[in-house]
């Protein structure tokens, strides 16, 4: 196969505003507006989120028992994360302690979610930029282009293992998309021995696929000097932010349960909190040009789109988690974590990995962990026990937190004595990252667009600054059309269209 295409020819624009609309290979809606100064250099950039549905309002008055099913519908890509954050919030609302079997089943189910989500992101969203190159023709820069480049058998493996992740969720959670099994203090569905064995077999295969993915990442990214040049480009892809993520009592990564740890720019722990304490840690800022709020560390404060010690901007998701943990409880993920730690140390990095594109590396390590943990749990014969429901008390108020594939996910509910929801607040994974993502987009645009010189490849590199944050597979379906949607409209100051560059 031909090598990846890193750069393409630029053309000079005299316009002052560049619109990337829609931004692509992410889940959800969004557009980027880039303003240029008279010399054609970037003055500022905005990543706008044009949607809102208002769950926090219309969930009031619903029975809290319905919230795990209603809040699933926040996101059809990671409904499992919402379902579990919601179920854990119900554990807290009902002062219920889930049984050991229920805890294991919830976590097993969740490893299915991570397997599906991280595979979809790495292969359908991220891989086109690395396998084909950030400046490859955009009608090739999609998952089918990746399949053409790496071969159909590998493509079939990708489809198979993503569907295994979905299947595990379906077996344990009742449904893959919009699961239903969560109860305060337990789960609704007992697992048969036959189902356990089926999941164990799928998990074994997924562990092997995790190993394959890490090797592929080494071969196509780490072994390519051009990509390492991009990854290490501190002008375009580097933020010295705070980091947040869930850890177990030994500070190992855990996606399902634990305390939330926050580290600073040097990697020092500045906070460790329990779900019920989140309001002491997080506040949310509102801007009039976007529907999404911007959380920040309350004690540090909101200082705008800058990072560093004095700015409360933090990052979550794979990079956040790898920077707050000291490793993994499973051997293969731990081995790759140590390799990453040694590699960045050899590059002279002290403290956390601030390189934004390292999100991708962290994500493939997490895929390996999720598959290994899935195999551990599916191999545990005790998960077929019928002890799946624990006791509960009168409903009050409570908070549930899990690590969604995209980051820390917080659900907070209050109930009246009849079980009707009186208050609901949610701080969602990508929302946590929003301020950082916007800062990354500004940074990449400023570093990459100079003197009005633009090209589709260059603008895709601006998109790479947000894409790495956001695992999703609706983009995979999008990319299947063979015509990924990148359109650049160059507008005059009055808003009229000067020219349109399209790649579809």
């Amino acid at each position: 196969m031909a090598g990846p295409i890193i750069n393409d020819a630029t053309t000079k624009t005299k316009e002052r505003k560049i619109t990337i609309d829609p931004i692509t290979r992410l889940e959800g809606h969004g557009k980027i507006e880039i303003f240029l100064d008279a010399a054609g250099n970037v003055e500022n950039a905005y990543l706008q989120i044009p949607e809102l549905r208002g769950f926090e309002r219309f969930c009031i008055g619903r029975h809290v028992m319905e919230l795990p099913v209603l809040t699933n519908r926040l996101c059809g890509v990671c409904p499992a994360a919402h379902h579990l954050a919601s179920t854990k919030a119900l554990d807290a609302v009902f002062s219920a302690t889930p049984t050991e079997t229920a805890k294991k089943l919830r976590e097993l189910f969740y490893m299915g979610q991570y397997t599906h989500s991280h595979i979809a992101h790495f292969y359908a969203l991220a891989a086109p930029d690395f396998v084909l190159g950030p400046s490859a023709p955009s009608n090739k820069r999609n998952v089918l282009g990746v399949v053409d480049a790496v071969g159909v058998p590998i493509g079939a493996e990708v489809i198979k293992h993503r569907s295994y992740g979905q299947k595990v969720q379906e077996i344990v959670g009742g449904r893959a998309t919009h699961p239903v099994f969560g109860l305060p203090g337990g789960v609704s569905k007992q697992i048969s021995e036959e189902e356990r064995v089926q999941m164990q077999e799928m998990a074994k295969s997924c562990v092997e696929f995790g190993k394959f993915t890490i090797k592929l990442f080494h071969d196509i990214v780490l072994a390519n000097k051009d990509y390492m040049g991009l990854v290490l480009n501190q002008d375009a892809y580097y933020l010295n932010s705070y980091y947040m993520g869930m850890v177990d009592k030994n500070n190992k990564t855990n996606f399902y349960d634990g305390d939330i740890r926050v580290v600073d720019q040097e990697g020092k722990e500045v906070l460790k909190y329990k779900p019920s304490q989140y309001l002491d840690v997080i506040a949310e800022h509102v801007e009039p040009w976007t529907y999404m709020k911007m959380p920040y560390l309350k004690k540090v404060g909101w200082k705008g789109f800058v990072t560093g010690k004095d700015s409360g901007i933090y990052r979550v998701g794979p990079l956040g988690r790898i920077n707050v943990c000291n490793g993994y409880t499973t051997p293969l993920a731990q081995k790759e974590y140590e390799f990453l730690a040694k590699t960045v140390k050899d590059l002279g990095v002290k403290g956390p990995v601030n390189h934004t594109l390292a999100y991708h590396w962290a994500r493939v390590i997490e895929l390996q962990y999720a598959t290994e943990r899935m195999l551990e749990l599916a191999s545990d014969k005790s998960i077929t026990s019928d002890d799946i429901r624990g006791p509960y008390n009168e409903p009050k108020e409570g908070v549930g937190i899990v690590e969604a594939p995209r980051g820390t996910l917080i659900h907070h509910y209050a109930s009246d004595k009849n079980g009707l929801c009186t208050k609901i607040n949610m701080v969602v994974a990508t929302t946590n990252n929003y301020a950082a993502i916007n800062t990354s987009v500004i940074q990449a645009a400023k570093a990459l667009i100079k003197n009005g010189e633009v090209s589709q490849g260059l603008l895709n590199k601006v998109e790479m600054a947000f894409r790495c944050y956001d695992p999703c597979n609706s983009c995979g379906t999008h990319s299947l059309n063979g015509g990924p949607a990148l359109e650049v409209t160059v507008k005059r100051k009055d808003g009229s269209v000067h020219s349109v560059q399209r790649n579809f």
Partner: protein
Amino acid sequence: MAEKIKIAQYWGAGCGGCDVALLDIDAKILDVHAIAQVVFWPIGFDGKISEIEKMPDKSITVSFYNGAIRNSENEHIAKVLREKSVVMIAFGSCACFGGTPGLANVTNKKEIFETVYKNTPSTDNPDFVTPQHHIKVKEGELELPEFWDSVKTLDEVVDVDYFMPGCPPTVNLIAMAVDAVAQHVTKGTPLPPKGAVIASDKTLCDECKRERVEKGRRIDKIYQAYEIKPDPKKCLLDQGIICIGPATRAGCGAMCPNAQMPCRGCMGPTKGVQEQGASMLSALSSLLNITDTESQLSEEQVMTLMMQVKDPLGTFYAFTLPKSMLKKAVTERGRRKVVS
């Protein structure tokens, strides 16, 4: 080889689950790819829609629209796709009935903004800044879609040819739709009549494996799913757990009852019924023996029974409020009105 048909897919106010459902057809996606070229997929606003706008009318064979109509952008794109498409399909329960986002019709834009941007406990917004349609920033001007006061279904804003309910539609239903289009394209098989619902005409109970009490069904107490451990073989309704199955269209394989949880009605009402909630209330009244003309129950006793349903709106209209005749008439205080 015949020229590929053109298809489009867009998501409005939805969650992406409909798009994941398309991924879940796995190998069948290759069948779609064999006959169709996708000209537009979820993430498209004015930039890309302007390209669709330039296409001749009716040049897209099929458009799948998922998600409800929540803002000006959703509505605009729905209208453009309608104009450019031969067949317009409302894909998924949000497009068909409003879905979960449609529950927002108990409230309005003002209340939603106050909750989200002011009253939620983590929000720090003393000046009550809210998103604006046109915004002046230091460097120029930015624009956002306008947030409507209420959620609309797709057929409230454009003419819809077919409806595919489900949250999300199941793999089987999608395969059925793909086959129908493929047969039409390759063999000239006629499409179903306009307005058809691409799903089963039965009720969920018909495909649920749980055993129902055949005669003299009667429940005295209503339970939430966490309050009792149901007998895994018996009908959930017979055990006092409100399951919307009797008022819900079949087609999902009764996945939720199979997982020991009640149906919430995501497939929408059964054939010929618009009011899923009223349909379920009527089914429930018979179980509670309220409609029995010989019933000895006083109105007070009836109220006592029905008040066991703590949240009728969320219970009976979790997926269909914008399609229901209640619409905006339902307020928080109206909760009782729904019951009585």
